[in-house]
């Protein structure tokens, strides 16, 4: 009987399509990635149905973390000179006696979460070392010693004549009184419009907002 010889198949598979897809995904992630800016604390923002974009420059960001500590930072990618103006103003109005080198260091400091008394100590440190310093947060709760008022007024002066947005980035677990104190500090500077940083939530279907949006789409 003639035996049927099965052709021996190679175990090698052609990996080319696989590699193609892998690199496609890789390039997608490389382009889509936006690195998180360094932050002193991890913040979990609450969700909201609002979908307006976050301004990235010309903004003041006030961070409230889960332990109700308040941080202040100025976002000015285009013009770092604004940061110098802020710290110079703080130095002058609060007479902190900061040296020029210390003030120059403020550019590298992402967010300040200290009372004015500890600011000199913070700015004396190398930016990499700053994270090790304990951060009690900017005092806000007592209206007489609400130091955030000074920070905001300094930022307002630095950005005079330009649009300046006030971002409030609060942790979902932070308590309301701190938020209220932040608002009151802004109010004392005659600022009444704020942007609360949130993550995007879906609009519940069937709600008034949902119906309104659909109507809007139809009309267009």
């Amino acid at each position, binding site marked *: 009987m003639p035996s049927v010889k099965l052709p021996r198949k190679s175990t090698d598979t052609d*990996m*080319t399509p*696989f*590699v193609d897809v*892998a690199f496609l995904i*890789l390039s997608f*992630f*490389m382009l*889509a*990635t*936006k*690195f*998180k800016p360094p932050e002193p604390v991890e913040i979990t*923002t*609450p*969700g*909201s*149905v*609002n*979908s*307006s*974009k*976050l*301004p990235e420059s010309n903004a003041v960001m006030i961070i*409230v973390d889960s332990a109700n500590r308040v941080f202040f930072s100025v976002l000015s990618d285009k013009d770092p000179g604004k940061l110098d103006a802020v710290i110079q103003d703080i130095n002058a109005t609060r007479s902190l006696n900061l040296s020029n080198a210390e003030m120059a260091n403020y550019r590298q400091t992402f967010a300040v979460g200290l009372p004015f008394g500890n600011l000199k100590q913070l700015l004396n440190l190398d930016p990499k070392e700053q994270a090790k310093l304990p951060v009690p947060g900017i005092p806000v709760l007592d209206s007489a010693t609400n130091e955030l008022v000074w920070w905001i007024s300094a930022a307002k002066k630095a950005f005079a004549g330009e649009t300046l947005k006030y*971002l*409030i980035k*609060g*942790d*979902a*677990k*932070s*308590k*309301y*009184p701190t*938020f*209220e104190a932040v*608002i009151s500090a*802004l*109010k004392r500077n005659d600022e*009444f*419009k*704020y*942007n*609360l*940083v*949130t*993550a*995007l*939530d879906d*609009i*519940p279907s069937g*709600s*008034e*907002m949902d119906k*309104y949006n659909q*109507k*809007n789409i*139809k*009309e267009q």
Partner: protein
Amino acid sequence: MSSIDVAAGESGHKKGPGVKKAKKLSTRVDMTPMVDLGFLLITFFIFTTTMTTPTTLDLNMPKDIKDEKEQTEAKESGVLSIMLGKGDQVYYYEGKLTVDAAGSNFKQTTFKGIRKVIIDKKKEVIGRHVHDETCKKTQDRAKAAKDPDWETACADRDFVVIIKPSEDATYKNTVDILDEMTINRARTYAMVKILKEEVELIKATEASAGIK
């Protein structure tokens, strides 16, 4: 290019007994290390990427007005007061707070339940709406702004929500209730300080319901 081809044609293909044939090398390259590296990078980018783009919720606060005469008045029948308490609890009452022997209108609910309360109250207020001259102006303005809801632009003008977060409310609660205003399209709402008697009522409810 062509010059190179010519040169290769002259010297490259000598045939004869003394010429060794070059070994044909396979054109296949082992791609395994490349794939390894590729996937390593993919995992790296997956972990570092932030997919949830942050958005912002706009909040406009009024200026503090000390003079009572200048403060905005709201019709009592159209007011819904919402208080935020401990443990994601929501308390509310319609109109004026009345606590007496006959009963109280102070009620307790959750964030899930408050939506229905808001919708119902809004419907009730719209049902009582009387059309007048100023109403027409509001409608015209909405029409000019291309608001698809211009017909009802004025019907809910008496509907006012007052939000009063207590000291125990979290920031998430505050954002959630503001969000609820957007979801239910409550046009007029204000965030004000909670009153002492309201705090006491919340404390009493918390104690009896065992909310921590």
